[in-house]
């Protein structure tokens, strides 16, 4: 009896469901890893695995924030340019105005927050389409970053920045990976264990139903864009810290990589359905694939082609799966 109950609980439990719903991409990731383990000499080494994780850390953070926005049926195209603006402003404050480290980095994050607030307000209060608003913000923030730097990199010399950007936890795990995991954990908990998370799914699934249930859908949406902005801001200062310099071209195309990871992770572009775990796996697939193609000595231009093919493949699998259900 208790066994049956246990099994039922397992079946209803969050963890089991998450694995089951993402089974397709989890298997794809495993197959990809196994293939690369046999095809290359260096894939399955601690060093290479850490390298893959380091390379996906920025895209991962942004994609986690993007997941919130896409769960609402929205989109945030401004994330890549926010990376550039946040990074350049905080580096400029340090290099040119001699600001101390912590406030300068915080300002970078605040920039992301501000962009998120503007996006959210224009989308909910002025009722502009998210695509247009964030496309405009993408241009504005990228332009500001270019103006700020006159198109040239800003170098910063600060011991602590070096540690923040390139330090390693226990001398093994790059801190950037830790940052990504912390953000993942926070956003995961908010999405799954708070009212806000439920409200996000409800608003994305049916905005009228959510409104009639007494949910303040406008603030739910604004907060999602703010989270996306803040996370991009963090990604911006962290990228700058890693390079101990800020380039106005940082984060170019990051919005597309993030959207790709989210979609690959099984989140519906129409909103209401998807998981953060899926996005993590989506990010990993893209990272492992890029890494694999590098190890195999394939021309790096092919990575874009492969990424595109994988996205189409993932969506086709999704459509077939949905058809079968019906």
């Amino acid at each position, binding site marked *: 009896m208790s066994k049956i109950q246990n099994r039922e609980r397992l079946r209803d439990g969050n963890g089991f469901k998450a694995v089951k719903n993402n089974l397709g991409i989890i298997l794809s990731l495993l197959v990809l890893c196994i293939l690369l383990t046999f095809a290359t000499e260096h894939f399955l080494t601690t060093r290479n695995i850490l390298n893959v994780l380091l390379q996906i850390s920025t895209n991962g953070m942004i994609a986690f924030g993007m997941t919130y926005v896409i769960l609402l049926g929205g989109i945030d195209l401004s994330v890549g340019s926010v990376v550039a603006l946040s990074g350049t402003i905080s580096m400029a404050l340090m290099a040119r105005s001699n600001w101390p480290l912590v406030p300068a980095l915080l300002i970078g994050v605040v920039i992301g927050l501000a962009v998120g607030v503007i996006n959210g307000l224009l989308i909910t209060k002025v009722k502009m389409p998210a695509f247009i608003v964030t496309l405009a913000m993408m241009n504005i923030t990228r332009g500001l970053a270019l103006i700020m730097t006159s198109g040239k990199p800003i170098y910063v010399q600060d011991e602590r920045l070096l540690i923040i950007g390139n330090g390693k936890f226990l001398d093994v795990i790059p801190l950037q990976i830790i940052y990504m995991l912390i953000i993942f954990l926070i956003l995961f908990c908010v999405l799954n264990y708070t009212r806000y998370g439920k409200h996000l799914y409800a608003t994305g699934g049916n905005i009228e139903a*959510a409104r009639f249930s007494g949910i303040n859908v406008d603030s739910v949406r604004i907060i999602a864009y703010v989270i996306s902005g803040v996370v991009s801001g963090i990604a911006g200062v962290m990228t700058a810290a890693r390079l101990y310099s800020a380039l106005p071209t940082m984060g170019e195309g990051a919005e597309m990589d993030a959207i790709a990871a989210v979609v690959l992770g099984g989140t519906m572009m129409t909103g209401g359905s998807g998981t953060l775990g899926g996005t993590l796996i989506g990010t990993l697939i893209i990272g492992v694939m890029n890494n694999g193609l590098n190890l195999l000595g394939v021309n790096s231009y092919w990575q874009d082609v492969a990424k595109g093919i994988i996205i189409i493949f993932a969506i086709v699998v999704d459509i077939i799966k949905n058809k079968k259900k019906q």
Partner: protein
Amino acid sequence: MDKKIVVRMEQITKIFGSVKALDQVDFELRAGEVHALLGENGSGKSTLIKVLGGIHRMESGQIYLDGKPVSIEDVFTANKLGISIVHQELSFAPRMTVADNIFMGKECRNRWGLIDAKKIMQESKRLLQDFGSDINPSELMCNLSISQQQVVEIVKALSNQVKILVMDEPSASLSLTEVENLYNAVDRVKEMGISVIYVSHRMEELFRLADRVTVLRDGKYIGTVDISDADEDSLVTMMVGREIEPHYGEHKIYDDIVLELRHLSRGAMVHDINMKVHKGEVVGIAGIVGAGRSECARVIAGIDKGYEGQIILNGREIQIRNPQDAISHGIVLIPEDRKEQGLVLMQSVKFNLTLCVLKKFIGFIGVNTKKQNQITDEMIKRLRIKVSGRDMEVGKLSGGNQQKVVLAKWLATDPKVLILDEPTRGIDVGAKAEIYSLIDELACKGMSTILISSDLPEIMRVCDTVYVMRKGSLGGKISGDELAQEKIIRYATGVEHE
């Protein structure tokens, strides 16, 4: 006899732009009664309940709850006062679980302030069981049937300590069997001592459910009657403000068989269908939703490709490989869902009306606007479509007029066989009557019509012959004097076979 009055709405006025949606309307709800709110589309009944539910704010008037004046600012206040609306277009998040939908906006939290998923699941299970439902709370909403979804919405309302439950046309999208589930649910709500406001078009269900009926027309209060004192004709007269013409009489049916189906089969939903449609005849296809009626129509219209058996038009077998084939043979299907399958809502009446006959006024290059306008005007006149002009946006028309535009769009192609799939779903009595007389008129001019409908009175009213489908096969054929609702139901549910 005089029961306590739970809600009194006095002199409610609501203005949208230049339109008075509600003009000094009074309404009264007694404790524990099911009070039907009746009226044509645009009569203001939806607006009235939205005022009560805090979705719209009234311009003037006063609402009393249990004798005390209240002001209902928003949905949240309404919920707190114990008023809950189950909306016509069910509003839930399809990809969330039943439990999450029931607790949407009031999620249980544990002492850390985090979501208590276990409690939400248990409470939902208890609430559903209390209501006598065995729906699994961890099921996704999108996997439930429509009547189950309604039950969840009702349970959701009940979980808010509701005192007044408002149901906005809940039966509009239900099949025969599902409607019965809904009625039982309403009965149970009533047994719990909760007052119900039931908005509906469907006359027959009022006599099954309601204690009293209030009728609105053009935003004005017409009157309230005890259902025991009312009959269908008097209610219709109150609603429409004019007598509705009775049955048009028999259609003149010619001997020529226009369309014949021989052993038509496709997949599991269409199996060995034999059917004859004469010139000038209106043939009904009855049966419960999911019996394969629409699927059968889709095969004839070439939408679902590939079939076995023969389709014979005017004595010659024809091949229908795609919708273009069907249209070129003069077979036209007017789909069930006018908004999704029939109309481009954001475009004008003219655009929609002439979409199927572009060849008539567009040459190799250049558009003959005069001709296009002429076709449009002719159709607007012929079908008595109420529009402000031919450039009016279709989305702004009422449901009945939208349906007329869909009809007109296809009539412009001069079809020989017209297939109508649920042509009057969700439109009001007045527009319904007009569509019936239009079908009659077309039949008299020799049109062969196939009408698919779940509305039995409609089938009885319009059809000369009725085929009843059940589980993809023909359950029986009824014509002439044998035509009776009971017989259709017996065939549809498999109680009787031919």
